[in-house]
C-alpha cells in the first residue's frame, strides 16, 4: 500500500477528472432526456415524452439515414485513402519527411478554416473544383447545392481534413512489420499487391480493426461539416443526428429532446465502443502472448 501511494494519488486525480468532465455530464444528460427544463424555472419529469417528440420529428429518420450513409461513405473513402497513402509513403525512398508533413498538414488547420476553404472549392460558379472540371471539358457539378451530391461533398471534406492522423497511425503500424517477411516474399517472387495482401494486411489487422471502429464512432458524430457548409440542407439532405441535437438544444431551446436524441446516439456508440474495447483487449492479450 505504502509503495503504491504515489500511483493511487495519480489514479485519484485521473478519476476526479473523469468524474467531473466525463461521467457527470453523461449521467446529467441521461437525466435531462427525461425532463423538461430551461435550467431556470421549474424542472418537470416527463417520462418518455422527449423521446416521442424526437421520434415523431420528420427530420429524425432523415438524420439517422444521412448519418448512416455519411459513416458508410466516410469509411469507404476515409478508411481506404489514409491506408493507401500510408502504403505509398512507406514505399518511398525520397522526401519522406516532407511528404508526411504535407499529408498531416490539413489536420493542423482549424476545422472551420478547412470547411470555409472547401466552401470556395465547391462554389458552383467560380469554385476551384468546377473550374478544374471546365478545364478538362467535363460537366460541372452543383456539389453542396444538390441533394444528390451534398453528402458525398461533405465526406470529401471530412476525409481531407482527417486523413493525416490516420495515415500516420497506419504508417507507424506498417513500420512494425518485420522486414524479413517482405524479403522472403520477394525471394518467392511475390509482387507488391501480393505482399500487401499476404503480409501487410494480416500483420496490421488489429490496428486496422481498431481504426475502423474509431472511425465509425467519430464519423457518426459528424457535425462541423453540415453546420458550417450546408446548414443541414438542401432539404435535409445533410442533416445529421448531432446537427439535429444541436438544433433542438440551441435553436429550439428544447434541451430535453436534444438530450433524448443524444442518449439514442450514445447507446448506438456504446455498442461500437464495446466492440472496440473487446478488440483492444484482444490486441493486448495477443501482444502479451507473444512476449
Amino acid at each position, binding site marked *: 500500500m505504502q509503495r503504491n501511494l504515489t500511483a493511487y494519488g495519480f489514479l485519484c486525480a485521473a478519476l476526479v477528472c473523469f468524474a467531473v468532465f466525463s461521467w457527470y455530464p453523461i449521467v446529467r444528460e*441521461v*437525466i435531462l432526456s*427525461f*425532463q423538461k427544463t*430551461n*435550467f*431556470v*424555472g*421549474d*424542472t*418537470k*419529469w*416527463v*417520462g*418518455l415524452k422527449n423521446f416521442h*417528440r424526437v421520434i*415523431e*420529428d*420528420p*427530420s429524425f429518420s432523415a438524420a439517422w439515414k444521412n448519418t448512416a450513409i455519411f459513416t458508410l461513405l466516410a469509411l469507404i473513402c476515409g478508411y481506404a485513402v489514409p491506408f493507401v497513402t500510408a502504403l505509398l509513403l512507406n514505399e518511398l525512398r525520397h522526401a519522406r519527411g516532407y511528404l508526411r508533413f504535407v499529408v498531416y498538414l490539413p489536420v493542423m488547420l482549424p476545422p472551420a478554416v478547412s470547411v470555409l476553404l472547401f466552401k470556395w472549392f465547391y*462554389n*458552383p*460558379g*467560380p469554385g476551384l473544383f468546377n473550374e478544374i472540371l471546365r478545364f478538362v471539358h467535363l460537366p460541372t457539378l*452543383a456539389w*453542396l*447545392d*444538390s*441533394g444528390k451530391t451534398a453528402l458525398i461533398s461533405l465526406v470529401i471534406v471530412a476525409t481531407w481534413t482527417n486523413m493525416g492522423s490516420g495515415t500516420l497511425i497506419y504508417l507507424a503500424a506498417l513500420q512494425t512489420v518485420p522486414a524479413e517477411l517482405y524479403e522472403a516474399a520477394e525471394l518467392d517472387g511475390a509482387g507488391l499487391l501480393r505482399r500487401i495482401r499476404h503480409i501487410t494486411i494480416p500483420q496490421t489487422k488489429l490496428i486496422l480493426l481498431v481504426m475502423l471502429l474509431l472511425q465509425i464512432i467519430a464519423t457518426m458524430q459528424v457535425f462541423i461539416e453540415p453546420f458550417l*457548409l*450546408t*446548414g*443541414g*440542407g*438542401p*432539404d*435535409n439532405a445533410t442533416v445529421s443526428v448531432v446537427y439535429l441535437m444541436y*438544433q433542438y438544444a*440551441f*435553436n*429550439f*431551446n428544447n*434541451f430535453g429532446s436534444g438530450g433524448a436524441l443524444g*442518449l439514442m446516439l450514445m*447507446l448506438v456508440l*456504446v*455498442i461500437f*465502443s*464495446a466492440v472496440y*474495447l*473487446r478488440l483492444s483487449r484482444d490486441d493486448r492479450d495477443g501482444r502479451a502472448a507473444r512476449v
Partner: protein
Amino acid sequence: MKARHLAVLVAGVTALANVAACGTSSSNDNDKGSKAANIAPLDPNTKVSITVGCQPPKSSKVLRTEWNNDVTAFQQLHPNITIVSKDAFPCEDPKTFTAKLAGGQMENVYYVYLTDAKNIIANGQAADITKYVSGVKNYGSLQPQLLNVFKGGGKLYGLPKTNYSMGLLYNRKLFQQAGLNPDQPPTTWAEVQADAKKISALGNGIVGYADYSAGNQGGWHFTAEMYSQGGDIVTPDGKKAAFNSPQGHAVLQNLQQMRWTDNSMGAKQLLQIADVQPMMASGKLGMYLSAPDNIPTIKDQFQGKFEDYGLAPMPNGQGTLIGGDGYMFNPKSSPDQIKAGILWLEFENLTPGKGQFDWAQKKIDKQPVGLPQPNIFTGAPAAEELQIRKQNSNLPVDNYKAFADGDPKVKYRLEPPQAQQIYAVLDGVVSSVLTNRNADVNSLLSKAETKVNGILANAE
C-alpha cells in the same frame, strides 16, 4: 464490454425512464415578482449596482465611447446607481442564453431580440416589470405592437430598444449599369423578377436577386415574402400552418422562375446573411431582402459605399416582417435592481435626443445618422425623434426615400410562434426550390405543412 453489461445498461435506462414517468418535480428558487410595497420609485439613498448587457465591444471604439459616456452621465444623474456594463458580441447568442442564465452569469438587464421574447416569457426566464414602468415618461407613447412582444398573460417583461422592418436593399450602381432607374426601385415581385433578369445579364458573376436558404434563414425570408404577398405562416390562433396557400405557391414559383428560368439568382445557393452582404459590398449583387441596418454593416465590415445602396419597401407591399431588440430583466434581480434598470433604459433607449437617440453626438462621431427605421414611439416623441434624426442626417437619405415613403403604408407583421422550428422546416422548402430544378412546389408545401402542424401541436 460483455453482452450482460450492455443488458444491464439498457435495463437501467428503462428503469430510469419508468421512475422518471412518475412525475415528481423540482424547482429553482425564483424571484416570482414583487410586493406592492416595491412600486415606489427607487430611493435616492439606496445604493444599487446593476449589470447591463450589450455594451458595444472594444472593436467598436466609437460606439463603446458613446456608451461609456452615457453611463457616466447617467451615474451623475443617479449617484446611488452603479452600472456595470457587460460587453459581448453578438449581444444575444441564443446558443448560450440558457446556460448563461442558469449559470448565474446573465446580466440584471439583458439584451434580447424581439424574436426570442415570447419564448423567454413562456420559459419563466424574465422578471415581471409591470409594476415598475408607470414612471417611464414615454411609456405610453411606445408602439403598442412592440410592447405586446414583451407581454405575456397581461404582464410586461421587457422594453423595446429598436425596431426594424424588412425591405428591399438594392445596388444603385448595378441598376444604372443595367439601364434601370435607381430612383424607381421595383414595387412588385414581377418587377423584381424583371429587374433581376436585366442585372444578371450584366454577366461577370453578377447576381440579380439573392435569397437565403440555410441556417433557418431561408424560412425567415420565406416568411417575409409570404407577408409581402398578404399570406400567413400560421392561422390566427397559431394552431395550424397556413402557408400552403396561393401566396405560398406564388412565393416559391417566383423563386423557382428567377432561379431556373431567368438564371438571375446565381448558381451558389444555401446562402446566409454572411454570404450575401459581401456579395452586395463587392458589387456582385443587385437586390436582396434586408432591414435598413444592413447598410452600415455592409459599409463597415465589407468596405461598401453608402452612396451605392438604395432601399425600397417590400415588393407587393401587403405586409412586412418586423423585428428588433430590447431589454428584459433577470428574474433573480431585486426590485431595486429592476427600478434602477428601468431608469437606465429610460435614459439610454427611451428618450429622444439622448442615449441611442443622441443623433447630434452620433453625427459628431461620424456614425451613420438618417437610416429609415420604423419609430419605436408614436405621437409627439416619435415626431421629436424623427426631427432630430433628420436635422443630423449624414447619409444619402434620398436613396432610401422609396422605403421611407412606402414602408409606413405596409402592414407590420411579427414572426410566427415557434419561429425557429418553423423556419428550420421552411429552410428545406426554399433550399429545395433553389437547388432542384424539378422541385415540386405542391408536394414541398404539403409536406412542410404536415411537419409544421406537428410542431404546433407539440408546442406547449
